[in-house]
């Protein structure tokens, strides 16, 4: 029995210590990412515009088709599912409210974040991880180049700019999907659907969605970079870390979504 208690306490201790170590590493990374992204460009005059733009193309521009298609489908699904219930009370016009508000406040940002986590977060982890495995990160350091400045800060800037942009596209295309379904299948007059959407949406709905999107962009970058820099062995660890980066960034995105939703519910 004492053995069991001992090992239980030891287990709790071990888990706590390893969690603390992770937290320490993550906070060091966050600290240096923010320093190299927002402060160093002013103190050293070094802004990596070229690589930031190329990251923006990879993260943002190349994600537009998939974000648009998925948002369009989700818009249709939302409209259909709301029609199923609203039909019973004869309030089909409220499909416009439901689709508009739920997309801008919630689904637009989170769908975009999940797609970007799968596409770009994993790519960050794989890129940095394989560079770490091939000693390229050490090579950067030995040339006097800070790896966070060279690798992470362009990605961070690109994500902070492009995730909100993608979210706007997602909002718009999603509402379009709801609109297409409503005017064709449910037979709502196009003019009144548009009018109803405009009446239902408030600026703050869109703004809170975009605030979330910015935060999600930051979270995905940090998680991807953290997992990438954790690679110490060879190729198989790169794969493992890439998977871990997707799972934990989706988890972190939803956790922060919960936080922001509660915050905005009470304070807007």
């Amino acid at each position, binding site marked *: 029995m004492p053995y069991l208690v001992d090992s239980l306490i030891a287990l709790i201790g071990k888990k706590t210590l390893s969690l603390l170590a992770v937290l320490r590493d993550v906070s060091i990374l966050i600290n240096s990412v923010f320093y190299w992204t927002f402060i160093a460009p002013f103190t050293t005059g070094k802004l990596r515009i070229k690589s930031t733009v190329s990251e923006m193309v990879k993260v943002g521009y190349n994600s537009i088709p998939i974000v648009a298609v998925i948002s369009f489908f989700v818009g249709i699904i939302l409209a259909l599912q709301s029609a199923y219930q609203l039909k019973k009370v004869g309030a089909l016009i409220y499909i416009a409210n439901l689709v508009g508000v739920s997309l801008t406040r919630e689904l637009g940002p989170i769908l975009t974040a999940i797609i970007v986590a799968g596409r770009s977060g994993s790519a960050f982890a794989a890129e940095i991880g394989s*560079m770490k495995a*091939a*000693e*390229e990160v*050490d*090579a950067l*350091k*030995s*040339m*006097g*180049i*800070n790896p966070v400045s060279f690798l992470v800060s362009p990605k961070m800037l690109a994500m902070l700019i492009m995730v909100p942009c993608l979210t706007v596209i997602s909002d718009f295309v999603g509402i379009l999907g709801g609109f297409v379904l409503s005017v064709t299948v449910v037979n709502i007059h196009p003019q009144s659907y548009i009018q109803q959407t405009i009446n239902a949406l408030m600026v703050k709905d869109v703004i809170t969605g975009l605030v979330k999107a910015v935060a999600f962009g930051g979270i995905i970058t940090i998680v991807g970079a953290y997992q990438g820099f954790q690679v110490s062995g060879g190729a198989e660890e790169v794969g493992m870390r890439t998977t871990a980066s997707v799972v934990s960034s989706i988890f972190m995105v939803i956790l922060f979504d919960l936080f922001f939703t509660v915050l905005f519910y009470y304070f807007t």
Partner: protein
Amino acid sequence: MQNESAITIKNLITRYGDKLILKDLSFEIPRSKITAIVGGSGCGKSTLLKHIIGLLKPASGSILVGGRDIVAMNERELNEFRRRIGVLFQGSALLNSMTIEDNVALPIREHARLNEATIKIMVKMKLDLVGLSGFDDFFPAQLSGGMKKRAGIARAMALDPEMLFFDEPQAGLDPITAAGLDELIMKLRDIFKMTLVVVTHELHSLFTIADHIIMLDKGELIFTGTVEQFKFSEHPKIKRFISRQVEEDKYCPEDYFNIITAD
């Protein structure tokens, strides 16, 4: 004295956890010569190299370069120091997403404000020096192992460093390519009077290129001196190393018993 030292290492100790990796090393690396660090696998020579280029902080001890201790330097000073050295990593560590030209230009673009035309000329000079003219627009994946190493040397040379470090430059190369690389390393010493440090365990190239040899065994310094002294050393481990004998009597029966019965 002609043989002044470029790097002086004093009482260097490293540990991973409880395990002692480098046990109190003290030696000097002479200026403008090729110094080879040799030893069996896992003897700590790569760790030692990482300490000297400032990638890893030792547990204690000091590494004096030009009278300054790099162990005590902060990140900013270290970056200043790293600008004056070049490193060729084992896998050459070129950035795969960039062309050879961009790889070689990277340290120049990062540390100097020059116009593109000047940088292009500098890159062409370095590539010509290592015998890779005309490969500017190739990606690292398109080059052979030996060419990658040459490109890695060109990148390490980009800022005209005072010292160059090589981590097992001959690893994974065929004998002819390796010999070509040896020649290039000697050329760098003879033409540029650079201080070169080569971590290796290739006997043949060791005797071809090295002026000075440092040998480690299980984290301990067992030899430091010239090649001649090394060849005629009476130390049993050096003799075994030179004649490629398998290490006998790894542990006595008692040790073996302790190993298999330990928890």
